[in-house]
């Protein structure tokens, strides 16, 4: 039960509208930035022969992830929530990345030839 007493303080923490306004503006700026970035060719990074990283999608996803994190932390109150909530969010992100990452690893490694 003491576990729940600690949570009381977090549950009743009321986030101020000021913070919400700041986050709103940050999200709108991020949107403008990502649109602008898509009109510019940001080039690529030739890691190895046959392995190139294009910066445009990296930047787009990075901005999207930043926006998403702001929404999760502040609009969804994750920053003010229990460790359990944070662990829950983290495990969801982790498994999502496992799904995408390990599946794409199969596709990418096919190009590496048969041993």
């Amino acid at each position, binding site marked *: 039960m003491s576990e729940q007493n600690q949570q009381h303080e977090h549950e009743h923490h009321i986030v101020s509208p000021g913070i919400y306004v700041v986050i709103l503006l940050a999200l709108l700026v991020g949107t403008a930035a990502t649109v602008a970035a898509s009109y510019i060719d940001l080039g690529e990074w030739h890691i190895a022969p046959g392995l190139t990283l294009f910066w445009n999608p990296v930047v787009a996803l990075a901005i999207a992830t930043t926006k998403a994190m702001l929404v999760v932390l502040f609009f969804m109150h994750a920053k003010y929530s229990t460790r*359990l909530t944070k662990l829950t969010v983290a495990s969801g992100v982790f498994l999502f990345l496992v799904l995408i990452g*390990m599946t794409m*690893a*199969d*596709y990418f*490694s096919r190009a*590496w030839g048969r041993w």
Partner: protein
Amino acid sequence: MSAATIVSLPDQSTARIPKMNFLTKENGLLSWLLTGDHKRIATLYLISITFFFFIGGALAGLIRLELLTPQTSLMAADTYNKVFTMHGVIMVFFFLVPSVPATIGNFLIPMMVGAKDLALPKVNLLSWYLYVIAGIMAIYTMAAGGVDTGWTFTTPLSTHYLNTHVISTGLAIFVAGFSSIFTGLNFIVTIHKMRCPGMTWFRLPLFVWANYAASILMVLGTPVLAITLVLVVLERTLHIGVFDPAYGGDPILFQHLFWFYSHPAVYIMILPGMGVISEVISTFSRKRVFGYTAVAFSSVAIAVFGFFVWAHHMFIMGISNYAALVFSLLTMLVAVPSAIKIFNWAFTLYKGSITFETPMLYAFGFMGLFTIGGMTGVFLGSTGTDIHLTETYFIVAHFHFVMVGGMLMAFLSGIHFWWPKWTGRMYPEKISQLAAIVTFIGFNFTFFPQFILGTLGMPRRYAAYPPEFQALNVFSTAGATILGVGYLLPVLYLTWSLKYGAVAGNNPWQATGLEWQTQSPPLTENFPEIPIMDHEAYDYEWLEHQQQKEVASVG
């Protein structure tokens, strides 16, 4: 001592089922159909899954009958395809996945954590309704002509080249999937948030840990299956999609998404059964489970690692060698936590005071058969041998050993173990022990020959086979007949026991655990006052102490 039993029943001449219990609290159909009581919902589930089990079992009987002869004698090859597909779909999604969690888990988890109900009773009821709706859709599919893709719905066969009821089956499984998701969600929330005072994580029964791990798999894995089925249905309807090469799609993409769920699904199916075995082995050895922490963490480890190994179902399908290597290695790792459990149960038995009541017979069956099934999994996880053994009867034997020899035996063990708590009555011991032995014998005769058939090269999902395989197939079918008897008997004598079984009392097994400290059947609210947990799990000394303090007879 060898004929000893730990059963301790109240004096039958004066004992009565408690008048006020969850079964008698309210009467009428609506009180059942609109209930929030987790025990009533568990009962509803028990009836539903038993129904589907026998449909799946009948389909299994048809398969074995067909395979008596090398030619397609009993039914056309297309019909045979439908039979094994529906057998797989029903057994996996309508029996095995909900088997222990939705019945025994629903019934026990609130009591085991010391709560009055699950966290979200209405969601629990919704979960059952979704199961029923899905079941109706599955029955419609069978009546309308069935589906013949195999339960794995491989594309583009399922999206492009077949004219059978893929869509209705896919949607049925979609709905059943959400039933499963909501059950798992409820369990996770309950176990985190509704434990009674003093009930720390490491005082929980291992059954709770096992269901917690399975629930994580249900919540995180099933949605991927759901979206995959949606994409299959869309592709079939719109004739455009991401799984058919004719449109530019990739069949292997389907398999990645399908197996991302369906591999964790096998752990969803087995983990709750392992939870049952922990409880049963402890009770019938009169000893706490050896290495509680290891067993608890191994459940979570199986859940976590279970998410990293799915492509071992795809070794021959066209994934890259590097992916095959990684997945094979991870598959070897995921076997370790399961092995840890078997070792720990064995060490629990060592120097324990062992008796052989029916739940324990099933538990022994589980330990032996699951070990064999699990070890044959190592041959399949190793890419070199998998190339020869996959898509043969070796695979069929492997998963039936773990699922039927393992999981179904664990389910029956649990049903018998908690039957007195659920109904207030004992089942008849002698005939149930006979049924357990008949099941064990029938099972081995049915499925052991299939390992041999697989190594000899008999492919799975074929109605016709080369004549040199007939002898082993006949043997297998003979075993299946015995197995059928073994499964029919419990239905008969358990139903009989509802009226004529001995009155069980609170704790016929003298087991530890909060559920055994309440009346049988329990009150609707489980405990009039929330209990306070002040001892470790499997604390038989505490139990002895408790029994000494108890009033021996009413004055």
